[in-house]
């Protein structure tokens, strides 16, 4: 049996001891409890006793040396243990450092020591923000605990300061309820619906001519868009997959085409619905849209007049732009974006010719409408326009 004799720990803060004198010799037999060594600490001198009975086979620290608490200072073993085993024991002894790992004898100075009880109270995060913004915190009245200046106080104070001379003048406008609804619905649509677009050009010459005849006969102003709403409604009759809503995992196809028309108003985009547009004449559609658009701009439309469209048309042709694409208005599954009808050079029978052309861009929800279906719809719509 081999026993280690280690530097004892006699005090709370004792980290090491000095070997004063051995009272037993190497090779001497000792009994458990016999004094074998005197050790001195910075407070006391005391005797180390043999931890077991045996022969003091090896002394590993001599008088005068300093050893940390837990370090090996001697080995006790009986005769049966070979010298080689004692040497092996010493080499393998790892000891147990009983002391805590030193935290570093020197601490760093506190970064924001102060905070004297009599001084103005400022949260360190608020102080940092004020420094970053170049604001003198003593100018700020704190609203926190004990009148303390909070981060919020600094932010509020900063907002009241006159802008820097070269700053860009700003106007802050709180979103209206309508604007917030548009924002939420469109962000949701763009984020969740797999949009794709198909586009076609149509010769609107004949449609334009029909429009002029109608307008001349009636007292109502008829736009090309009114004509297009009618054409689209007829085309939807042949392609019910696009005249639909997606509700959960069900596709709802509608018998009538109730077409929502995008109308720009001062409060934002409003979409009055022309019910059963296929059954109405272009003139009727023109009257309905004119009347509803006027009320939309006044904010006088009823909720049911802007709800439950089955398909949408957005026309920005009046601004002269050629083409654009639109975001689907869920639960609808498609929206048609109409550009300006313009005279363009086209190739006809191998020769350049001038035609009154229109670009139509359909955005569709790929979950419901496959590309071929969208393409077929646009082809039908072109036929409606060109005939």
């Amino acid at each position, binding site marked *: 049996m081999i026993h280690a004799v280690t530097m004892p720990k006699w005090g709370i803060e004792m980290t090491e001891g000095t070997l004063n004198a051995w009272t037993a010799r190497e090779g001497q037999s000792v009994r458990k409890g016999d004094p074998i060594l005197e050790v001195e600490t910075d407070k006391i001198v005391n005797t180390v006793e043999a931890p077991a009975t045996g022969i003091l086979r090896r002394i590993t620290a001599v008088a005068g040396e300093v050893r940390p608490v837990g370090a090996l200072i001697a080995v006790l073993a009986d005769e049966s243990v070979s010298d080689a085993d004692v040497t092996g024991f010493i080499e393998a002894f790892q000891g147990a450092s009983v002391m805590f790992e030193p935290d*570093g004898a020197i601490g760093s100075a506190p970064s924001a*020591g102060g905070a004297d009880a*009599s001084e103005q109270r400022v949260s360190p995060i608020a102080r940092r923000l004020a420094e970053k913004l170049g604001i003198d915190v003593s100018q700020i009245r704190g609203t926190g605990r004990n009148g303390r200046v909070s981060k919020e106080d600094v932010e509020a104070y900063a907002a009241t300061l006159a802008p820097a001379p070269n700053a860009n003048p700003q106007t802050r406008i709180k979103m209206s309820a309508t604007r917030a609804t548009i924002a939420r619905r469109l962000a949701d649509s763009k984020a969740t619906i797999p949009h794709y677009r198909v586009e076609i050009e149509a010769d609107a010459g004949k449609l334009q001519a029909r429009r002029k005849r109608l307008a001349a006969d009636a007292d109502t102003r008829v736009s090309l868009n009114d004509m297009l709403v009618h054409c689209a409604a007829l085309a939807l009759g042949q392609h019910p997959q696009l005249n639909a809503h997606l509700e959960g995992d069900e596709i709802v196809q509608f018998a009538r085409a109730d077409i929502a028309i995008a109308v720009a108003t001062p409060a934002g985009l409003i979409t009055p619905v022309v019910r059963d547009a296929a059954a109405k004449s272009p003139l009727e559609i023109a009257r309905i849209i004119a009347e509803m658009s006027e009320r939309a701009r006044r904010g006088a439309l009823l909720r049911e007049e802007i709800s439950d469209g089955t398909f949408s048309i957005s026309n920005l042709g009046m601004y002269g732009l050629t083409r654009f694409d639109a975001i689907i208005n869920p639960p609808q599954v498609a929206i048609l974006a109409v550009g300006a009808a313009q005279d363009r050079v086209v190739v006809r029978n191998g020769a350049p010719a001038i035609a009154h052309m229109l670009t139509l861009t359909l955005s569709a929800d790929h979950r419901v409408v496959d590309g071929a279906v969208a393409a077929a719809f646009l082809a039908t719509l072109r036929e409606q326009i060109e005939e």
Partner: protein
Amino acid sequence: MAQLSMRDAVNQALHQEMARDSRVIVLGEDVSGGAGGTSNEREASGGIFGVTKGLLPRFGAERVIDTPISESAIVGAAAGAALAGLRPVAEIMFADFVGVCMDQIYNQIAKFRYMFGGKSACPVVIRTAMGAGMNMGAQHSQTIYALLTAIPGLKIVVPSNAHDAKGLMIQAIRDDDPVVFFEHKALYPRKMEVPEDPYTIAFGEANLVREGDAATVVALGRMVTFAEKALDALAKEGIYCDLIDPRTTSPLDEETILESVENTGRLVVVDESPPRCSVAADIAAIVASRGFESLRAPVGLVTAPHAPIPFSPALERAWVPGPQAIEAAVRKVLGG
């Protein structure tokens, strides 16, 4: 500026306040000297940690009172002296012994001002040594500040360095409310620059020890020094964090913690205590309930295990939360 250990910084605060205000007295076991010294001088050591050294010869036995081994008597006498107009600084040698005088602390000194309708004050300071890591076993190593933080009517101070310890001790003595002052044993020898002149540090004012926007680390007492090590290692990789040392757990500077988390979105709390009902759990709950929308990751808690503190040095080292655990927790809240 002089380099002072935390032991000497607290000692200096006691000397300066006793010289400034004759109402300040010190009482406890071995506060006059003691500690088994061989010189037979009563003032030899100044208690087992040397914090009250030199008070007896300077201020006399009427103001520096050695008591019998009865924590209940020490705190009870201090409570009575405070009600009678003195400003006693009572010492409980180890924080673990607070259990013996718990009624005096939580039912008496914590309640007087409230129950007498604000007509009385009980300006007692209870100084006590705490903390593991020095191989002192399960009954002499605990950090039981969470237990007292839970009691309304007490102010709880947990300094992490010599500079703060001096300012907080002077504030504690001048404060009209009872204060329990936890001194970590492992921090006693740690030195730093400490101004000679008396100064106070307000309670409820956290110290921003390190700055950065990657994460917020909140640590107390000795854990601040470990968090500094962990954050210095992370800073070498370009990861910078706010390190907040609340300095007092009651009042707690909740605002600074919430404001920092508003910037960083990530929180790690380090506490040398078992996790249940700990200050770490309390801070996590405050941020979860009042700063939830700022959080971008679950709160990281670095605490001791729910177990008594082992005497075995190897096991004790595993029990105490260390710099590596803090570093790992920061990496985890960063998604690493």
